[in-house]
C-alpha cells in the first residue's frame, strides 16, 4: 500500500498498532460463508492493505482522514464474527477495534450502558445482571460486540419478546462519518448525556440503520448507549459443564419457569404465540425445530447420530420454548396461570422432557444468555451453515407462510443429498418480538463447505426461497439475499428493489454520496455511490 499513508498510520497509532504482515492480513479475510461468494474456502478473495488498531475516537478519525486523503477504502471490524467484517475489494484498510473495549458507564436509573466496539454482550450482561438489569444478548452468542450489533447489524434474540429488537435499543451514538467528521446522535451532540439518540429535529438514526445496519459502509461507530431492562432473576447464573449438553445451573432461578409447549399445527402454534404476546407474560421465547436440534447434539457426528436416533421419535413437530421471569413470586404465579390458560385454549400440550432438569437448564441459559451450544450445533456437523430467511420479519398472518414455504422448498434439496438432512425442519428464531407486534423466523441450513455442489445447492435453495417469498409479496430476507446476490456478482439492493413499490435505492444512494463524498467506506454490503453497470 501507499507508504506515505502507512507512515501516517504509524505516527498516529505507534508502529506496534499497525501491520501489513501478509500472514496477519490473511486472518482478516477469514469469513464464515466465504465459500458462498468466492473460492470454496474460508479465506475471502481480498487481502486488506493493512490493519490498524486504534484505541480512541480521535485515532479512528485520524485513520479515516488519512484514508480519505490517499484514496484508500476502510472498514471497521469489531468482533468479526459474521460475513460482513472483511474487505469487499483489494486495498482496504481495516480498523480492528479490539483496543476500544471500555464499558464506559452503566446508568442504573436511566437503564443504559455506554460501550465501545469491543465490549461483548457477555461482559455487558454480567455487569447489568449484578445490578438487576439485562440486555438483549443476541442469538449469535454472548461473544459478539454489542455496539456492532446495535449500530451496524441486526438484533434478533430470544428476549426480543420482552425487550425489543436492537434497532430500538440504542440511545446516544458517537459516529466517525466516512469523511472523518464526528457526529454524535441525539443528546450527546448537544452535550446532554447519552439519554437519547433522536434529534434535535429529524433523527439521524434514520440513516444509521434499518432492520440491518450499514455493515461498515457508512463510517465507524465508536461509542453508543445500549438500553438495559429489568431482570428479575439472580445476579449471577453459575453453571457447570459449560458448553456441553450436560450444562447444569447450580441453582435454578426461583422467579423463572420454563414452558415447552407443542401444537397440532403451526397455525395453532402461532395463535398461542399471539396470545402470549398480547398477555405480555413472556420474558424470552425461542424456536429450535427438531431437525436442527438433533443434528449436532453430541460431541462428534457419530455420537450426534446416536443421540438423534434415540431422541427424534420423542420430539413433537411444532414446539417452542418460553421462559417466564417474574419480578415477584406473585407475578410468576400469574404468568404461569395465563400460560396454562392459553395452552388450554389452543390445545397446546407440554413437552415435559424438555421442561425437566436435563434440558431445562440449558434451554433457560440459552434463552437468557444467547447460549453457545446452538452455534456448535450448527457448525460442527458439516463445518458450516447458512440461515435461509435471515432477515424475514413478519406479522401475525405471515410468519407461518414463511415457515411453510421454506420447509416445502427445502425438502426437495434435502432429498438431493447435498445438504444435511434436518427433515427440512431447521428453524431457529425468537418467533415473536415486542410482545407479538413483530415476528421473526429464519431457517438454518447445514451444508458442506468443502463440497462445491453442496454450496451450490445452498445457493440455489436460497435463491428459490427468496423468490418464492417475493412472489407471495412477503418480505425478502436481506441477509440471505446479500449472499446470493454477491455469489451472482449482483448488487443486493438491485436484486430486491425490483420487487418494491418505490425505489428505496435512490435515497440510500444519496446518503452514501452525501456522507461519503470520497467513497472511502467499503460498501460491499451497503450501497455503492453509483449504480453498478
Amino acid at each position, binding site marked *: 500500500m501507499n507508504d506515505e499513508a502507512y507512515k501516517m498510520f504509524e505516527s498516529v497509532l505507534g508502529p506496534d498498532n499497525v501491520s501489513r504482515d501478509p500472514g496477519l492480513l490473511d486472518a482478516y479475510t477469514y469469513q464464515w460463508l466465504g465459500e458462498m461468494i468466492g473460492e470454496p474456502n474460508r479465506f475471502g478473495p481480498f487481502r486488506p492493505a493493512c490493519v490498524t488498531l486504534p484505541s480512541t475516537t480521535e485515532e479512528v478519525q485520524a485513520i479515516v482522514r488519512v484514508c480519505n486523503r490517499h484514496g484508500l477504502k476502510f472498514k471497521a471490524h469489531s468482533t468479526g464474527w459474521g460475513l460482513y467484517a472483511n474487505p469487499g475489494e483489494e486495498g482496504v484498510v481495516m480498523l480492528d477495534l479490539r483496543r476500544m473495549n471500555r464499558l464506559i458507564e452503566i446508568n442504573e436509573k436511566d437503564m443504559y450502558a455506554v460501550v465501545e466496539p469491543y465490549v461483548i454482550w457477555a461482559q455487558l450482561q454480567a455487569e447489568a445482571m449484578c445490578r438487576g438489569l439485562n440486555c438483549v444478548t443476541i442469538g449469535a452468542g454472548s461473544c459478539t460486540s454489542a455496539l456492532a450489533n446495535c449500530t451496524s447489524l441486526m438484533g434478533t434474540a430470544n428476549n426480543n419478546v420482552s425487550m425489543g429488537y436492537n434497532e430500538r435499543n440504542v440511545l446516544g451514538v458517537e459516529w466517525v462519518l466516512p469523511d472523518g467528521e464526528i*457526529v454524535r446522535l441525539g443528546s450527546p*451532540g448537544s452535550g*446532554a448525556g447519552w439519554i437519547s439518540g433522536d*434529534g434535535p*429535529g*429529524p433523527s439521524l438514526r434514520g440513516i444509521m440503520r434499518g432492520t440491518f445496519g450499514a455493515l461498515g459502509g457508512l463510517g465507524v461507530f465508536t461509542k453508543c448507549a445500549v438500553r438495559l431492562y429489568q431482570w428479575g432473576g439472580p445476579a449471577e447464573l453459575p453453571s457447570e459443564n459449560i458448553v456441553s449438553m450436560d450444562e447444569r445451573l447450580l441453582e435454578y432461578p426461583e422467579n423463572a419457569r420454563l414452558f415447552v409447549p407443542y401444537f397440532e399445527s403451526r397455525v395453532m402454534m402461532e395463535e398461542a404465540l399471539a396470545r402470549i404476546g398480547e398477555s405480555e407474560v413472556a420474558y424470552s421465547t425461542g424456536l429450535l425445530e427438531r431437525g436442527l436440534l438433533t443434528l449436532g447434539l453430541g460431541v462428534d457426528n457419530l455420537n450426534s447420530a446416536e443421540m438423534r436416533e434415540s431422541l427424534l421419535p420423542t420430539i413433537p413437530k411444532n414446539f417452542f420454548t418460553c421462559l417466564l421471569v417474574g419480578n415477584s413470586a406473585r407475578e410468576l404465579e400469574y404468568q404461569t396461570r395465563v400460560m396454562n390458560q392459553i395452552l388450554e385454549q389452543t390445545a397446546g400440550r407440554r413437552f415435559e422432557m424438555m421442561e425437566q432438569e436435563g434440558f431445562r437448564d440449558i434451554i433457560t441459559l440459552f434463552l437468557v444468555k444467547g447460549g453457545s451450544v446452538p452455534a456448535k450445533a450448527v457448525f460442527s456437523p458439516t463445518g458450516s451453515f447458512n440461515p435461509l430467511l435471515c432477515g424475514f*420479519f413478519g*406479522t401475525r*398472518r405471515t410468519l407461518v407462510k414463511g415457515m411453510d414455504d421454506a420447509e416445502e422448498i427445502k425438502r426437495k434439496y434435502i432429498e438431493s443429498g447435498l445438504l444435511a438432512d434436518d427433515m427440512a425442519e431447521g428453524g431457529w428464531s425468537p418467533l415473536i418480538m415486542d410482545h407479538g407486534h413483530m415476528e421473526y423466523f429464519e431457517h438454518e441450513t447445514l451444508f458442506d463447505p468443502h463440497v462445491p455442489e453442496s454450496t451450490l445447492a445452498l445457493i440455489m435453495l436460497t435463491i428459490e426461497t427468496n423468490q418464492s417469498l417475493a412472489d407471495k409479496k412477503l418480505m425478502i430476507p436481506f441477509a440471505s439475499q446479500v449472499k446470493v446476490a454477491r455469489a451472482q456478482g449482483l448488487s443486493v439492493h438491485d436484486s430486491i428493489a425490483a420487487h418494491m413499490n418505490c425505489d428505496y435505492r435512490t435515497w440510500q444512494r444519496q446518503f452514501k454520496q452525501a456522507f461519503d463524498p470520497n467513497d472511502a467506506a467499503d460498501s460491499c454490503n451497503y450501497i455503492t455511490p453509483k449504480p453498478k453497470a
Partner: protein
Amino acid sequence: MMEKEKAVGVVGAEHVLDSPEILKRYSCDMSFTPSRTPSCVVRPNSLEHVQALIKLAAEANTPLIPVSSGEPRFRGDTVPTLGGVIVDMSRMNKIRMVDRKDRVAMVEPGVRFGELQTALRKEGLRLPTPLSPRQTKSVVGSCLEREPHIIPKYHLDHSEPLLCCEVVFGAGDVFRTGEAGGPGTIEEQQQAGRRQKIPMEIQMNINRILQGSQGTLGIVTWATVRCEVLPTVQKPLLAASDSLQQLLELAHWLVRLRLGDELFILNDVNFAHLMGTKLEMVNGLKEELPQWILLFCLAGYEFLPQERMSYQEKDASEVAKNVGVPLYETLCTVSANDVLARATSPSEPYWKLRWSGACQDIPFISAFHGVPELVGVMQEEAAKRKFPLSHLGIYVQPVCQGHGQHCEFSLFYDPTSPREAEKVKELYFAASKALMDRGAFFSRPYDLLSEMVYNRDAASREALRKLKNIFDPKNILNPGKLCF
C-alpha cells in the same frame, strides 16, 4: 409564487381559500413566532393532489407549509416563515384500516385522537395517547412530532406509535416507509396478510428522519400506528408528595417493573388546570394539593384480568411502601378515575388554555437525575422575572420504557396583557437557555429556539442540511424552520 388558478386546477376552487379571515388564522399561532400571512390555503384530498401541489410549488419556487391539526396551534412550526401556501391536510380524514389481530390502524393525517379512539374501542383496541391532547390534534401530526404518550411501557421508542407511512418528499417522489415499501403494492401486501407494521427499511429508517422534521422534508398522506389491547378492567391510583424525587423514584420502579399502564407526574398547577371544572376549584386545588401528583393505572386485559390486577396492585403497593408514598383513590376530592378519564381523552376547551387564555410550553428530554435540578433551574428563572410559580405547570413523563424523562414546563399567562406576554417571552428564552446549559436536551426545537439548539450541535446541523438537500433540494417545504 404558485398561481392560485393552478392550485384550483388540482383541488378545485372550493378547496383553495384566500379570504383575509382565513389567511389570518394561519398567519400566527399561540407561540411568539412572528406572524406572516400565507398567500392561500389549499386542501388536498389525495396522494395525487399532494404530489401535484409539490410539483407546482417546485416549479414556482413557492413554500408549502403542511398542516394537519386544527387550531389552536402552539409551536410556531406551521406559521409560514417566508410566506407561501398552507397545505391543510384535514380533509384527508379517513381511518383506512383497523385490525384487531395485528393491533394496528391506518389513518390519514386529518384523523384526530377522539375519532380514532372511538373506532378502535369498537374493535377492542386503544392507541396510547399524549396527555389529554386538544380535540383538534391530528394523530399523524402528533406521531411526526415525536410527542410522547402517557403509557411508558408501550412507548417502546421515541418513534412510537408510528409504524409505516406514505410520504411525498419535497423532491416530488412518493415513498412508503418500512415494510409498506414492498414487495408488492399496499393492496397486494394486505391480501398477503401484511399490515404495514414493520417500521424499518433494510438499511435505513426513513420514519426517524421524517419525525421531528416539522414538515420540512415531506408531506405524509397516511400512517399506520401501533395499537394495544383495550383493558377489560382498570384501577387508577394516585400518589402525592412535596418531594419530586420521591415520586420520580416511585415512577422509576413502577415503569421498570411494568406495574401499571398510564403513568405520569404533574405539579399541583398542572393538575389543577387539567382537573378543575370551575375557576374556584382550580384555585382551591392549587392551594390544597401537595406539590407533586403521580397517576398510574393498573389494568387487566383478556387473560385473567382480575388476577393481573391483584398481583399488580400488591406489587405496586410494596414499591410505594418502599419509597414511602401512600396511594390514594381520591385526592383532594378528585378521583383517580376522573384523572384517568381526563388524561386519556382529548379536551375541549383545551385544558392548557381553559384557565389562562394562553400557554407557552418548554418541552425537553432529561436523564432521571437531572429532573429535580432542571425544575429548580426553571423555578429560579421564573422567580428572577417575577413570574408566579402558581402559573408554572410542570409535567414529567417517563418515556421509552423508562429510558429517559420527557419534561414539559407550561407558562400559563393572559394573552390580552402585552406586558405579561412580553415577560413570558423573555422567560421562555432565558429559561430555555439556562435549561440547555444544565443538560436539558431540546430534541424537538421549535420556532425561535432552533438556532440556540443547533448552535450547540454544529455536526448534526451539517448532517441534517445534507438530508434536507436530498429530500427537499429546492427548499420548498416549510423553509426557515429547524436549521433549514
